[in-house]
């Protein structure tokens, strides 16, 4: 089976001369949750809009489930559900009508049972006869998701799904995404909330200035770049490291009041036991200790700084 999404040498230069995407290559496997991270203006939405047929690419090829998005646009688009970033809705339409409308656009016969299921899943069933303009922002976001799910897509794009969304909806959304994945739906989400990617994604891509600078399994990424630090507050400040502790990944901080040990938390031997033994041997005593794991956010900030 072909990958659900394959992007080769994709380029986009807008009429204004702005180069939004430069030579993007990406392959997404069936059933994975992929998070595309990047600062504002990095090209996340442009990439999604090209795949979905809203923006015309300047070069390159994209296939969705083996279908070229230009030549076999019907098959390609029928596979895709899109939840856009902007809350754009038909203000005067009712929830159920606007959701059913989308199903029709995608060429599917009416299926009230499926629409009801989707609306119930998103806690929208009670609101089905409300007009869009009567809904809160969070509810509108739910309706946009319902529209995308109305035609049973196998590849779902969530463009900044939790921007300006309350905690409850965010958790609902995460549950929903996992349920969809269990049903075999591939989910691609863009976000600049790193916790979201950390919470949900199987793989993470980082895009910056129109280029994908990194694609990695989340666990691998965390492992590779995920360093842990142990900080020990010393009872008596030190002016220099005792000779026995030099070259052990230790640093002296806070004018000799702290010892900072950096280690790989995933490694088989972290060296902590030995370190603590050695410290006792060296006659050092400490009053407190903390450990801190670098989050995806630290990694991300580090990456952006590195490439700046």
């Amino acid at each position, binding site marked *: 089976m072909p990958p659900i999404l394959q992007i080769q040498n994709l380029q986009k230069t807008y009429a204004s001369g702005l180069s939004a995407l430069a030579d993007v290559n990406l392959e997404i496997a069936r059933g994975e949750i992929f998070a595309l991270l990047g600062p504002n203006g990095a090209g996340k939405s442009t990439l999604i809009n090209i795949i979905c047929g809203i*923006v015309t690419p300047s070069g390159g090829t994209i296939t969705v489930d083996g279908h070229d998005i230009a030549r076999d646009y019907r098959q390609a688009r029928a596979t895709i559900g899109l939840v856009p970033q902007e809350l*754009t809705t*038909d203000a005067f339409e009712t929830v159920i009508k606007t959701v059913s409308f989308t199903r029709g656009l995608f060429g599917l016969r009416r299926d009230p049972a499926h629409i009801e299921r989707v609306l119930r899943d998103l806690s929208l069933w009670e609101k089905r006869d409300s007009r869009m303009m009567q809904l809160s922002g969070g509810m509108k976001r739910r309706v946009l998701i319902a529209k995308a799910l109305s035609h049973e897509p196998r590849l779902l794009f969530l463009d900044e799904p939790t921007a300006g969304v309350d905690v409850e909806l965010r958790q609902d959304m995460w549950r929903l995404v996992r349920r969809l994945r269990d049903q075999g739906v591939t989910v691609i989400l863009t976000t600049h909330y790193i916790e979201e990617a950390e919470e949900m994604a199987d793989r993470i891509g980082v895009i910056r200035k129109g280029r994908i600078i990194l694609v990695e399994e989340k666990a691998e990424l965390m492992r590779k770049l995920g360093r842990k630090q142990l900080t020990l507050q010393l009872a008596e400040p030190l002016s220099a490291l005792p000779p026995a502790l030099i070259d052990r990944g230790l640093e002296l901080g806070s004018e000799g009041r702290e010892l900072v040990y950096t280690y790989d938390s995933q490694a088989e031997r972290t060296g902590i036991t030995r370190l603590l033994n050695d410290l006792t041997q060296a006659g050092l005593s400490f009053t407190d200790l903390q450990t801190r794991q670098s989050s995806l956010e630290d990694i991300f900030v580090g990456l952006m700084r590195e490439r700046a």
Partner: protein
Amino acid sequence: MSRMNWPAVRAIYVFEMHRFLRTATQSILAPVISTSLYFVVFGAAIGARMNTVDGVPYGLFIVPGLMMLSLLTQSITNASFGIYFPRFAGTIYEILSAPISPVEVVLGYVGAAASKAIIIALIILATAALFVPLRVEHPFWMLAFLLLTAVTFSLFGFVIGLWADGFERLQMVPLLIITPLTFLGGSFYAIEMLPPFWQTVSLANPVVYLISGFRWSFFGRADIGIAASLGMTMLFLVLCLGAVTYIFRTGYRLKS
């Protein structure tokens, strides 16, 4: 799956007709009231002092012109608003990302706009029947002209809706071009009532051909030969189709 996506055409059509029905009171009441006013003013007040035009009582004579006037403005405003509004509100993303061909998009929007315009024209005809004894000599041709004109001008409206980048522009064409052309196109008079010079000028007005052909289907007589009327209507239809095709091929105003 390269066959037609009929559910999509239906979805757009139903959506658009629903928008029409939501505002049914103003959509239907407005043409009824304005038609009645025309009959009171032109038919009763002025028509009573006028002889027949071309053997047709004046009140009856203005019926085809009145229908055309509404048909043109309704076709254009419905179609232009229908496609402009999703562009304005941003919901156009759904149309662009759906597995729909341009033909299907046009069928949905233009089909609905033309349907609405025809319904309103028929309401005007029914209202007119309350004021004057109607007669339609060529009912088939009357319906054919109705359909052809509605489709042509709905296509024209669709082009305007794609071109417009504000509500003012949307209003501009019907208000500044169509209404004057219709009034000067013989809605309320026969072209031969004009001085010779203005008769010649009138021949440059495309609406003259539409009204003349339409009036022929009612009374069996016209300012201009029926073939010329039909030909001009078809020509305009082809021009509009060409414009729409060009727009979709280039993605003009739809895609960046």
